[in-house]
């Protein structure tokens, strides 16, 4: 077992992990942050998307031990003091989810995009989110929710 110190969702955090376990295992099993979902476990579906030292990654393709000293942001840190992030609000308003398993990954990935580019084209949104799979919605409503959030963040009515 290894003792890891990291900053997770803004809080200094410590946990123990098996050296072969993934960051996804640590988040869900050691830290009970089950908002981050396991889909494929092989980096194909994006359900476990988190921000790792500022980069969007699949938590299933990062070893828990690699998180020593790192900053990790999950879906659970997106809302602040009980107030939904505009992306979360638009996902609800635009019905951009059905079963909800892919939603945390989409929220984390879309937030990372909008922090880099608050005025993405539809094509840019689709390419950025190509690593997040949804088997329910057909994607259109998700793309619309992201574009509507971007418009709101730019101060335009949506």
């Amino acid at each position, binding site marked *: 077992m290894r003792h890891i110190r990291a900053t997770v969702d803004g809080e200094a955090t410590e946990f123990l992990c098996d*050296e*072969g376990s*993934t960051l996804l295992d640590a988040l869900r099993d050691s830290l009970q942050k089950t908002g981050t979902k396991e889909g494929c476990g092989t*980096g194909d579906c994006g359900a476990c998307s988190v921000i790792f030292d500022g980069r*969007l*990654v*699949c938590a299933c*393709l990062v*070893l828990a031990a690699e998180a020593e000293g790192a900053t990790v942001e999950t879906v659970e840190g997106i809302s602040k003091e009980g107030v939904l992030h505009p992306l979360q609000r638009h996902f609800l308003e635009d019905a951009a989810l059905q079963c909800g398993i892919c939603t945390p990954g989409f929220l984390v990935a879309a937030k990372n995009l909008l922090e880099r580019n608050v005025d993405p084209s539809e094509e840019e949104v689709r390419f950025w989110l190509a*690593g997040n799979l949804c088997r329910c919605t057909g994607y259109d409503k998700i793309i619309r929710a992201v574009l509507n959030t971007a418009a709101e963040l730019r101060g335009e009515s949506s």
Partner: protein
Amino acid sequence: MEYHSARTAEEAIELLTETGMDTRALAGGTDLLAQIRSGRVRPQRVVDLKKIPEFHSIEESESGFQIGASVSGAEIGEHPSLRAHWPGLVEAAELIGSTQIQGRASLGGNVCNASPAADTVPALIAASAICSVIGPGGRREVPVEEIVTGPGQTSLKLGEIVAHFRLSRRLKNSGDAYLRLIPRSEMDIAVVGAGVALTLDEDDLCVACRVGLGAVAPTALLVSEASNALLGRAVNDASLADLEEAARAAARPIDDKRGTRDYRIRVAGVLARRAATLAMKRARGLDK
């Protein structure tokens, strides 16, 4: 499984060299961790290289670029000077996987995972990339086309790792390009990949050319017959037709779910020709 994060190259080599241990070097992990999960590999020890400064930095100098083996695709894509000098190589690195994969996947991993369809290898071959390999016997320089020897196989000896890739600066009137075909628009493995780098002289004749082909043989190929088709000639329909034929002749692919042997041979010619045309436009400054 033991996890070690090496702080220096010497530490990494020592950890990788210990006999009797099944040890793997870890860069971005996008191949290795998926292979561990599937049970395809069961290492007893993993040595993380990402904290070693030489491995995680891009250095630019008068002589060219030094790209650390664990630098991610996203970092390569965000490097303005690398984009300007080697747009084809940057395109190849950026084609790999999703945004999430781009955040981790590295050049060193893409080469040393030794997939015949690895996107960056034909582009690195075209760009005449040199690998700086370190190991128990010291440091040696190896042309990138000599690293991969077969699917999943490399020429690296016990304890050896690729530390960085060296590229020259872009010469005057030079350009490179990488194109690949996949069955859909994103997120798939190459049916064929073609990288071309070339240089034109004042009379618009081709004076240097390298052609790399991927996914048409057990390893990516350096196709000198294809570059010879352009050397000393204008890049026009006649010379490009010869390049296309030489690329087809060099291809010896397999049939699989992504494409038949005959289809891959044909596509190898078409992509080599299109990549050469794009590289020529870049050499003339007609395309970025």
